[in-house]
């Protein structure tokens, strides 16, 4: 949007259709364009507000910060700028919340923090959120929004793929459902790890979803791609996504999944 989120401008311009929209209506629809349906990116707080019961989100591990293990060029200042811009310490925010009254463990990635990239902190927090779900026997809901691994942390960033995937096994062992929601974009190191092995995968419409970034793919000589290559719709056709869910329907859809797949957790193991 032209207008900064949280600013008091009366109008914003849609990034999909370029129409001018009333800011109040735009915010009321959680930044979905009433004309073309374009789903604009949300900050983690906007996502929490749009999804979970009011005032139920309880954040944890909020003070974790990366150590810049490689002393990577330009990383420290970029990291500081992202913190200043977003008010968060890193790209992923975790905690517990309620969804239509049901307790859930939550992780939300925020693209506004260095492209939602996954370094040591994001990996640790996703892992903590999945472990919390397994330990507390509540469903895990993870909102993905990431360009991939955070290359400034080198090989340790790559290892977050294995670490977060391993945590999915904890959920599976505990029999708690893990639901991933792909939002624009869900790419590379995040897509190729915990996100793709969720029990259920939902996606917002037209989110970018893919393995190789466009620059990497181009270098590798990818061509003859269909027009909607690396979209949620392409991934859905390819059998990778369960449902493409408009933002306004996400809350009830997630609640239904918690009541069915996670139903046994609520009522005790009455059957089987």
């Amino acid at each position: 949007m032209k207008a900064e989120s949280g600013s008091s401008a009366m109008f914003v311009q849609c990034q999909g259709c370029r129409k001018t929209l009333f800011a109040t209506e735009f915010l009321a629809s959680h930044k979905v364009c009433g004309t073309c349906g374009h789903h604009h990116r949300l900050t983690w707080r906007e996502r929490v507000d749009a999804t979970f019961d009011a005032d139920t989100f309880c954040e944890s591990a909020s003070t974790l910060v990366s150590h810049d293990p490689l002393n990577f060029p330009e990383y420290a200042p970029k990291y500081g700028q992202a913190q200043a811009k977003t008010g968060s310490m890193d790209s992923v925010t975790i905690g517990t919340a309620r969804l239509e009254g049901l307790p859930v463990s939550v992780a939300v990635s925020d693209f506004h923090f260095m492209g939602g990239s996954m370094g040591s902190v994001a990996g640790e927090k996703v892992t903590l959120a999945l472990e919390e779900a397994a330990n507390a026997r509540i469903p895990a809901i993870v909102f993905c929004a990431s360009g991939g691994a955070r290359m400034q942390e080198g090989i340790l960033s790559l290892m977050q793929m294995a670490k977060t995937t391993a945590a999915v096994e904890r959920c599976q062992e505990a029999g708690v459902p893990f639901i991933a929601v792909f939002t624009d974009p869900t790419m590379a190191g995040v897509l190729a790890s915990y996100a793709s092995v969720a029990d259920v995968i939902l996606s917002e419409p037209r989110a970018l979803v893919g393995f190789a970034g466009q620059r990497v793919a181009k270098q590798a000589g990818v061509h003859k791609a269909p027009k909607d290559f690396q979209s949620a719709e392409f991934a859905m056709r390819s059998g990778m996504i369960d449902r493409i869910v408009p933002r306004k329907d996400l809350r009830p859809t997630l609640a239904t999944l918690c009541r069915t797949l996670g139903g046994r957790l609520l009522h005790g193991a009455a059957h089987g």
Partner: protein
Amino acid sequence: MAKTYKEWMQPLRELEEGIANLESLAAGESGDKAAEIAETIRRFRQRRDNYIETLFSRLGPWERVLLARAEQRPYTLDYVSRIFSEFLELAGDRAAADDHAIVGGPALFQGRPVIALGHQKGRNLTERTDRNYAMAKPEGYRKAIRLFRMAERFRMPVLTFVDTPAADPGVESESRGISEAIASSMLEMVRLTVPVVSVVIGEGGSGGALGIAVANRVLMLEHSIYSVIPPEGCAAILWRAPEKGPQAAAALQLTAQTALELGVVEQVIPEPFGGAHRDYDEAAAGVRDAIALHLSQLDAMSPESLKADRYDKFRRLGSFSHQDLAAVSVTS
């Protein structure tokens, strides 16, 4: 432009050629003349060894990348044929295709049944095309999953050999779920209750490498690399200049030594003098001994603790702290 392997190795190649010429010359001579040539050969060899020693004592980050990718290096099947007996390659993902970029099957390691698998590069254009430059597609990882499950069922240790620039990023791979396949392969490895040892033998290229490297013990050959992204890709993203690979290689610190220091790998396996490609047998012997050592340690663990050990290994990896606490790295 960044230096190529060929350019870098030019002086060494000239020395080797000189030695070869002298050797063929010597074959036709006898007596004093022969002794004279032998002495020259000896001096040339000495010079070559000194050159190698100097070269390897001050390897830069980019030279390390070139070395890890060198097509003279032994590939997975070169190690497999030297380390195992009765290796029988199995094929197919039971869903769509067989991927020649990953090979694997049952074998005997020092008389004991194991599953061996790894990325396989090719040495000429035909082979490279057939192997897709060791860039595995979804069917490669799904074949690996089949082999992991077989290992679990028949209680066989899993030994993987990692050597890939990256997983295949093409349209077909995307439409058959390359991301899902890599993630599922990692998840399957997480579940195993048998010993798993992975050896990075050349290029450990991002998710495509990690997809078969979620092991209890990850080992790296001295001159192999392991990286979250190819240096050229890193340069393309950071500086929009893929040709700045050497700078990115320096920043990424993709060496075995760094991986060891960060706790990502458990052991760096020394290579023969001048690199693994100068003596396949010696290189394979080093890998064999390292595998034997780690397997003997893992054999002492119960199935449950093998799984827990693997979880803990990756659970620990990361470098962070609480902002308001004393900055203490979680790794090493």
